[in-house]
């Protein structure tokens, strides 16, 4: 940050905000980190990624946030999310009221059954857990979810950027299977919207 900034330079740029919520161990934090990195490293934008956390390592309520902007990001947390990825019913119940009207809601129908006021949001479903489980491990559910998310935010994030960020964050030996998981998520999303 500059020691002294010219007032004319500091008009704020538009923010795009994503919130991911669920239980610890579902990949909430990982999804946030991958998205943040994809925007910052591979799209040349600014992005912040923060997470709420509790004392328990697994199984507690967990939230991760990504803010994207072409300009400087001051307040690093989400204020009014454009996108909510809810991986548990509790997460949905807690965070849905904050979602912008007309905002994008991506849920895993395996764990999220009940959506209040469904008409207010653009709702997309991805059975990430189930698909990943069929692929051999629920660990891949992040990549499935990101695959499903991508077409929905494709106007601000290149697919290649997201794939690169996934490859950076998973163990080298699982890059290929994570790419398959991404493809499955992508297919599923395109089938539904197509």
């Amino acid at each position, binding site marked *: 940050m500059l*020691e002294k900034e010219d007032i004319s330079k500091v008009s704020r740029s538009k923010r795009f905000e994503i919130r991911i919520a669920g239980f610890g161990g579902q990949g909430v934090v990982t999804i946030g980190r991958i998205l943040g990195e994809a925007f910052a490293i591979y799209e040349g934008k600014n992005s912040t990624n923060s997470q709420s956390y509790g*004392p328990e390592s697994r199984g507690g309520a967990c939230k991760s946030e990504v803010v994207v902007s072409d300009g400087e990001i*001051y307040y690093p947390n989400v204020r009014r999310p454009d996108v909510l990825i809810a991986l548990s019913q509790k997460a949905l119940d807690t965070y849905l009221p904050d979602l912008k009207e007309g905002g994008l809601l991506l849920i895993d129908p395996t764990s999220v059954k009940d959506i209040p006021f469904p008409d207010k949001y653009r709702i997309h479903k991805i059975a990430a857990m189930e698909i990943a489980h069929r692929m051999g491990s629920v660990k891949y559910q992040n990549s499935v979810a990101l695959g499903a998310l991508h077409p929905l935010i494709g106007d601000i994030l290149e697919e290649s950027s997201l794939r690169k960020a996934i490859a950076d964050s998973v163990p080298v030996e699982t890059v290929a299977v994570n790419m398959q998981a991404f493809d499955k998520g992508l297919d599923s999303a395109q089938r539904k919207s197509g």
Partner: protein
Amino acid sequence: MSKGPQERHLLKPGRYYLQGSEACVEGALMAGCRVFAGYPITPASEAMEHAARRFPQVGGRFIQMEDEIGSASVLIGASWGGAKAMTATSSPGFSLMQEAISIGIISETPMVIVDIQRPGPGQGYITASQEDVMQARWGHHGEGSIIALAPASVQEMFDLTIQAFNLSEKWRTPVLVMAEEPVAHLRELLRVGARADIGIINRSKPQDLGIQPDDYLPWGHDVVAPMANWGEGYSVNFVGLVHKEDGNVTDWSSEVNCNCTKRLLSKIEGNAREIAQIETRFVEGSRNFVISYGSVSRTAIEAVMEAREQNGIDLGYVRLKTLWPFPEENLRAAITSADTIFIPEMNFGMMRHPIVEALGDRCRNFVSIPSLGILHSPELILSKIVEVT
């Protein structure tokens, strides 16, 4: 031990997406730190884990000590052994380190302590806080000043950690990096420049000044004494008692006591103008101001801009990059007169005290905006500003 083939394992120039804690450790390595001692504590463990991975890669040594008292004590031994050394902890651990900080002050030991504050008292909780900012200054026993910096971004976790080492080497004193969870756990872009462009300061040495062992005063010669490390043939007797410039503790006198303490105080407070830094925006012509530090600044500046743009409120902004020595002169240069000064902090108004002390003759209305355990929302700061102005 900082030179060698392992140097290539330092961050290369480029863009990285890192957590604040990781950036802090990378900054330390870049500054030449090669000893890390720590004890796990939330929310500072990420820094320690990153250090455990990274220190051996660059030829440094990492140790997990039995407690925070041990960790801080390691810094003293390591620093006099010739290394730049650091630890990272959180508030309860910071309390346990106060004795070593105090001994670091009187022995004029360069060392860096990162406190990723958590709310308290007691075990408090594990979230965000700025409740140790007074402990940073006054927590150690005895009189003697301290340098404390407040980073507000991942970039600053890197930059200010480098600066912390530079200040500690230059002024031969413990330097604190008073960080908070929102910036320690935040991930954002870190831009690393070329090694040659990153200024690194190392302690001045009697060898370089032509001072022979027989004439060497470990606590004399200059405002900041040149420092001979152990193992260099200077037979340095490190002492924690008030001492004469040669380390002699035989004859206590009020004069020896006074001179020793005065030296420690004036070294820092007398050079506050050089050490302390602030950042200002929109200050010229403004009648109302927000003063903040650390991660709260991220919210504060958001609120200030929103108040200016949407509510048309005349509002200037000052960020304290240095908490201690308190940047009184910088502040008085930035704010010559004010109607209201808002001070959002993640405590009930700790830094309000030195701010009022510095600006009490220029402003009558100081408004604290506390948020405990969680980073302020822009709405919280904005609503208070709208209500008062």
